[in-house]
Each structure stands twice: as structure tokens, then as C-alpha cells.
């Protein structure tokens, strides 16, 4: 149970996400991933990528950047038999690759399908909130590159910070709230017109 003054998280403003997929590519760039990405971009609309729900004039389409939720209660950490998954005081959940034996229990346990086994050596991999950048006082690379300025990164516990301010002024939701994982990623979307 964390009880510190810092909890890093993301607010995704789906009213500004233009569905450009830059975040997906940015993640590949930052982590030198040849195939795949720790981040996926889901279309909230029609059944297919980049298509809307409804029929004209009642069309709607939003996009949802989707990665590790850096949960308060990470199911991955709970099932990991090697103790390879840790949660830092600032909330960031990390997989320590040297300790991972590729058993993939975490892959199955994650309700967000945020973890995948990497192509070489079968190590579990996921979004690490660009911890190397964060530790230098920089924002995660997806947030930096986001064309729509839709990814807001910050310390949710800092009342004076932009993240807390946004949460105070807007309605947000978390994904799969019923799983009780308490994600650190919040999504904002206005009610569909």
C-alpha cells in the first residue's frame, strides 16, 4: 500500500486525441522496439480501426491510447513467482528483466493485456512510464510527441499540478474499474452527443 506524496499517472483527454498513432511509434522509438509497441491505440467507434460508431448524422469516433495502467494494486506483481515486478514509491510499476524467467503468468493476469513476451529471450515487457526520462525530470516520450496534446503526465497527488487540476475540473473514468486494480491512467471523454 503506497502512502507517499507522489503518484505518477496519465490523463488521456479523448476529446483531443486525433487518432494519429504517433504515441505508438514514439514508444517504439524510445524503447528501440522493432515489432509491436508497449502502447496500442484503440478506436472507440465502429468495429474496425479508424471507423465511427452509428450512422450519419449520429456518428462518433474517439481514440484510446492504451498501455500499462501502473495500478495501485497490480495483478501482475501479485502473480509473479520470481518477484521480478516491483512498484516504486512514485507509483511506477516495473519489470526487472534480469529476474524475469518468461513464465508469462503476468501476461495472463493483466486485465488490460498490457504485458507481452518480448521476441528475444522471452522476457515479459510493458510500458515502464519511460522511467529513465522521468528520473531526469522529463515526461514520457509518448506525452512529449502527442500531436493532439492529449496525453497529460504528472504527479496526481500534487494538488497544484496540472494533472490534479484536470481531475478536479473534468469527469474521468478508469478502465475495468470492476477489477479493483486502481489504475493511474484516467480517460476523459464528454458524453456522446
Amino acid at each position, binding site marked *: 500500500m503506497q502512502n507517499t506524496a507522489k503518484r505518477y499517472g496519465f490523463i488521456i483527454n479523448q*476529446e*483531443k486525441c*486525433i*487518432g*494519429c*498513432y*504517433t504515441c*505508438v*511509434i*514514439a514508444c*517504439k*522509438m*524510445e524503447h*528501440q522496439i*522493432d*515489432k*509491436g509497441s508497449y502502447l496500442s491505440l484503440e478506436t472507440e*467507434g*465502429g*468495429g*474496425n480501426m*479508424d*471507423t*465511427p*460508431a*452509428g*450512422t*450519419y*448524422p449520429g*456518428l*462518433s*469516433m*474517439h481514440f484510446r491510447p492504451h498501455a500499462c495502467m501502473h495500478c495501485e494494486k497490480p495483478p501482475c506483481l501479485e502473480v509473479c513467482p520470481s518477484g521480478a515486478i516491483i512498484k516504486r514509491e512514485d507509483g511506477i510499476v516495473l519489470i526487472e528483466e534480469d529476474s524475469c524467467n518468461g513464465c508469462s503468468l503476468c501476461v495472463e493476469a493483466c486485465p488490460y493485456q498490457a504485458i507481452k513476451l518480448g521476441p528475444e529471450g522471452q522476457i515479459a515487457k510493458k510500458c515502464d512510464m519511460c522511467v529513465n526520462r522521468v528520473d531526469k525530470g522529463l515526461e514520457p*516520450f509518448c506525452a*512529449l*510527441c*502527442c*500531436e*493532439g*496534446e492529449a496525453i497529460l503526465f504528472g504527479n496526481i497527488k500534487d494538488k497544484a499540478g496540472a494533472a490534479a487540476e484536470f481531475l478536479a475540473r473534468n469527469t474521468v473514468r478508469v478502465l475495468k474499474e470492476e477489477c479493483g486494480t486502481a489504475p493511474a491512467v484516467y480517460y476523459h471523454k464528454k458524453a456522446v452527443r
Partner: protein
Amino acid sequence: MSETYKDAKIVRTACPYHCSGNSCGVLAHVQGDNITKLEPAEFPDNRFRRVCLRGLSSLQLLNHPDRLKYPLKRVGNRGEGKWARVTWDEALDTIADNFKKIQEKHGPQAIAWVLGGPGGGTTKFGIYCRFAALTHGTRVSCWGYGDAAGPDAMLATFGTHFQGHDTRDSRNSKICILWGTNPAVTRPFQMRHFMRARESTGVKLVAIDPIFSHSAARCDQYIQIRPGTDSALALGMMQVIINNNLHDKDYLTKNTVGPLLVNTVTGQFLREKDLVSEGSDKYMVWDRVNAQPAPQDKPEVAPVLDHSCTLKGARYETAFHMLSELAAQYTPEKTSEITDIPSDVIRDLAIEYASNRPSSIYTNMGVQRTYHGDLSFRTILALAAVCGYYGVKGGGASLGAGPKTYVLNWGYFLKPEEWATYSRLPILNLYEALETGKPFPVKGVWFAFINFVNQSPNSNKIIKDVLPKADFIVDTDLFMNTTGQYSDMVLPVCTFLEHSDLVGGPFPYLQLQQRVVKPRYESKSDVNIINALAEKMGLKEYFHKSEEELVETFIDSKHPSLEGISMDNLKQGPYASKKFAEPFVAWTDQKFPTRTGRIEFYAEKLAPLGEALPVYKPPKEGRENPLVKKYPLVFVQRHSNFRTHSMYANVSWLLELNPEPLVEMNPVDARTRGINEGDMVLVYNDRGKAKLKARLNEGVKAGVVDIAQGWWFHQFGEGGFNCLTYEDRNPAQELVYEANSGFNDVLVEVEKVG
């Protein structure tokens, strides 16, 4: 200045790739001679600090296994795909020999320099102009393969090709109409400005588009329109506005040709000399005070905006009278029949746009890629004039990236010597020049930053009838693509990471594209290719400047807009004139560079073609065309988020997300054809075909199908998207400036194949 600049292993440059003048700043992380990472570079205003998925994927262009490594000379027949490696010396000697022979036999203008889209790059474009001028060659202007109709409309109406509002000004609008444009995909910078504007001042964003695009999805209102009927909508809006007395009569009288008298038979403006011998060329208005015609520039005259009269036996009407009579025909009901937009939506949009002052329109090339695309934009421009929205903050009807304000030293490139001039040929006229030698024969072709066969209309005709008539064809590219296959010599060029250039944008900045690593393999920048070719053709004395020296030449215009600019400070970061700290608004002085000095919504030059007024003419290939019985669907070709035209089509990071061509169609049209999601289909008409998978998309208007342009032909099962289009030239556009390709004005049928 951030910490990163002190580290010598990080180089600041700019990605110039063609996002309508919005080039992103890029920091390249270098280790040895390799680039390990690209990231967005800082700007004084950090809202500009972004780079998109394409810019980031540029590392994959740099390191692509299929990159052209050395010059290739064709062996075997064109299209056979047989090549021999040659040295640069041999390649350039061969080109020089062939070009000399052609020039001796057919004249110097028989060599055509086909300059496609340099994006934001200036020296790479300029060097070709200089070479063409010094060799009296022909510079082929590539506005016409999709981008000419907007500038045509601007030239006819405002006397200049490009001008408009800085998109940051949209915060001052009450309503912003994104008319036939999809900035979320084609100009993310601009989309960001719109969304910021909405957050700060609550501006309402309205999207008008045949397809519910990524931009439309973020707007407050989406209006679905039949392709090519935008003039009708604009006229319909004018009808409502004038009927409700919401038009700006004062503005129309002072700043437009509204009050000028027009001869209803000749369609020409009345001039003083038409009434009195020894009279001047001055345009005439009807003076209310003295109840007689008077020159328009006399301050004591009170022009009547809406007037008709008979003078010397001829009937005259004011241009505004004619415009309002034209608009009067476009009642909401009639407009609805044409555009498929409900009449109450038209009425409400018109009233909102005119009463919430000021409101603005932003548009770009998509809406203008129909046969009458120039009329589409002329009518939109007239609509904004009717409301008096020019020269005011929060107003305008602006094209693309907006303002043109920096004055660079183009003289060095366009007119290097008094005697040095090139002939000019629009791209759509190149077809005829090659095929039949009209207006003059072209026998040698050099393609620069263009994938001509892939991206120009009627690819089958190009391959069968046009290119075979050329004696020698040179293609310069990063890859062997659709155009290279039909060339005689293919030369490897560099990515932006391997050469320096001066890059315009994002407004209000100018940036230095600074070489990060050495050119790979034997690739060369366009500047260095031309410098080397010049030596072969006896022009070495004119082509000795390096890339950076050319940048210095460009910025040395001594124009006040570039005050304080220098190579040194460009190396540190982007340049912006202090004048543009506030969003730029065009024509605040209400002085327009037209012959009348006024906004010319009425263009007398086009009277012989019945287009002096911004009329509505139906799409060339739409439901009014009997061809619709055979080919009932309208084919449009939007831009892909995963490419910049045909660039990046072979990049694995992007292909992972977007693996293959798709034809997007409304489920209603798919159902009647027995087509399910993912079925292989053939899209075809009399000109050609394309075989690809179907995607069902409720956002596509019923009756319309869309294939995102830029896929290379080999990525289709058969054919290609531009096998379906035509190269016909609109004479009205030619009269103004240059004919445009009606890419979005094509009829096709779609059927399921095995």
C-alpha cells in the same frame, strides 16, 4: 536553451516532408555515424514542439534495406526491371550527352525539370530552377497534380496565389468551418491550434466533408456533403444570408467589386471610356448622390451596392446584384437536393456563420480536387466577402498553411542572369508536350521529389502513351518505385537527415535543416547532384556553392521580414520575425493586389466561359453524368495518416499498423454488392482498375468510395488507384493560372472478386 544543445552528439534539424508548410523541428541523437533516436526539438513557443509518426519513422527511411545505393542505368526495356550499376561519373556523363543531343535536335526547352513536392525544402527546389534557367530548359510546375485549383481561385479573387490567416488566429473566431480539409491527418500542427482555440475561447468547430474524418470526429458539428457540390452549399448559404439581411453591405461596397457596374452582355466591368470618349480606364459605380455613373475611386461618391440600369442602350448591373440573383436560385431546398445536406442544416449554418461575428473558414486542397475545384473555392471566398470577414481578426477564408510573409532571396535561383530564363509548363500540359509535341516538344525528363507515375492522374496513359515518347528519363528517389521502373537512369538521393537546407515553417518560424550524418552509400542531395551535373555541362562557374552556402544566399534577401536572421542563429534554433508574435491576419489594410484593388468575387476575364461569377457547376463525373449508370460510385482519394503522399509506403513501423490498401465504403453500398468486410474487390472504370480489400465504414457517405492515395502500385493486387483518374484540363483554370487534377471527381464501380 536546453541542456541538450551543449551535448555535441545531438544535432538539431527539421523534417521538411510536405505537411503543407508545417515542418517539425527534430533533434537527432548521433552515435558515431549512426542516428539512434529522433525526438521533437524545442521552440520558443513550445506548443510547436512535436513530431508525428511519419517524421519519427524517418529513421526507417534512412536505414531501409531497399534504399537505392548507387546510380542505376536501365538495361533491357522500360518497365522490365533490369538495371546495371554505374558510377556517378558515367551516370552524369550519360545524362549530359543525352540532354545535349535532345537540346540540339529539339531546342533547349525540350528538357523538362519536373519538380514535385519539395515540402518545406527551399535550396533543393531552388537549385533546379537555377539550372533550368541557365540552360533555358523547361520548369514543370507541379501545382496541377492536386494543388492548383485553390491558388487559381485565390489569384482570380485576390490577385495572389497564397494568403490567409495564421491558424493561431482561429481563437478569435466564433465559428471555424473546416471545409473539405482534414488537418488531423494532413497538418496536425493546425489541428492543434484549432483545439487550443476551442479550449481557450470556446470557438465552435464545424467540419464539412463527404467522409467523417479524424478531424470531423473532433469537431462540434459534422456536415456530410456530396463531393464537388461545395459551390452550391456556399451559394445556398449566401441566399439565406442575403435574404435575412445579414450580409455586410458596407464592407461589400467599400472593399469588393460589389458596386462595380457590369455589362450584362459582354460580362465586362464598365469603364469610364465606355461612356465618354477620352474617358479613363477607371471602373464605374452608380453614385446615389448624383444619380449617375461615377468612377469608383472618387471619395465623395456614394456607390449603390445593388443596382441595375441602362446606359447608352446597354443593360448594366452591379456585380453584387448579379451575385445575389445567382444566390437567390439556391434556396435551401434546391441546395439540399444538390448537396444532400438537409435544408434546415444549411439554413442554420448560414445564419450562425453570418451572425456570430467574426467567423472563419479554413480549407485546403481536398475540396479543390474536383474538375471545378477552382469554382468551389471561389464561391467559398465570396461567401466570406459577403459577410465582410476579410482583414479582421478571427475572420478569413484561408488556404492551407496560411500566410506567406517571409521574403527570401529567390532571385539567385529564379533569375541568375538577365539572359537566364526557363520555359514554364504546367504538369498536366506535360502529357501533351510529350505525346504530341504541343505547345512544344519535350523529349528529356528529370523527375525530382515526385513519384510521377504513381501520383499523377491516369497512370495507364502515362505508361502507355506519354513516357514512351520521351527519349531520356531520369528519376531521382530514395527507392525504386512506380516511376523509377519506367525511367532510363535512376539516381539515389538523400533523406533530410543527410543534407542541409532551409525549411519554411511551421508559421511563424523558419528552420535550418542541418545535416546529421553523411549521405549513405553513394546517395547525394539534389544540390550536390546538380553541382556535379553542371560540371559535366560546362556550367561549373554557376554551381559551386555548398548546401549551407545556398542557405546563406537564400536568407540574404535584405528584406525587413528577415531582420536579424543569420546562419549562426539558425544553427542554434528557429528564426521568427518579432512581427509575428501575434497571429498574422491578412489584408488588415483592405488593399488587395487585384486590377480593381478590390476583392474580385466577379472575375470578368472568365466571362467568356460563363464563370465570371462564382457559379456552381456539377461534378464532371457525378450523378448528372450519364456515365453514372455504368459506374455509380464516386471515387475519392484521401490522404493517409501513415504516409506523406507516397513516401513512407514501404516503412515497416507504419505498415505494421496499416498493412495494405483498402477501399472504404459505406455498408449500404457494400451490402447491395454482396461485399463483406475484408473481401477482395475490384474498383474499376473505363480507364483502369485497382484490386484491394474492402473496408466497411459508416463514416463514408453512401455513394462514395475512398482509397487513401500514395500506395505504390505493386502494393495492389492489380492496377493502382491513379489508373482510375483522368488528366483532363479545365480551361477556366488554365485561363487563370494552371489546370488542376480532379482526383476526387471520378466515377467507378466496385465488385467482389474471387
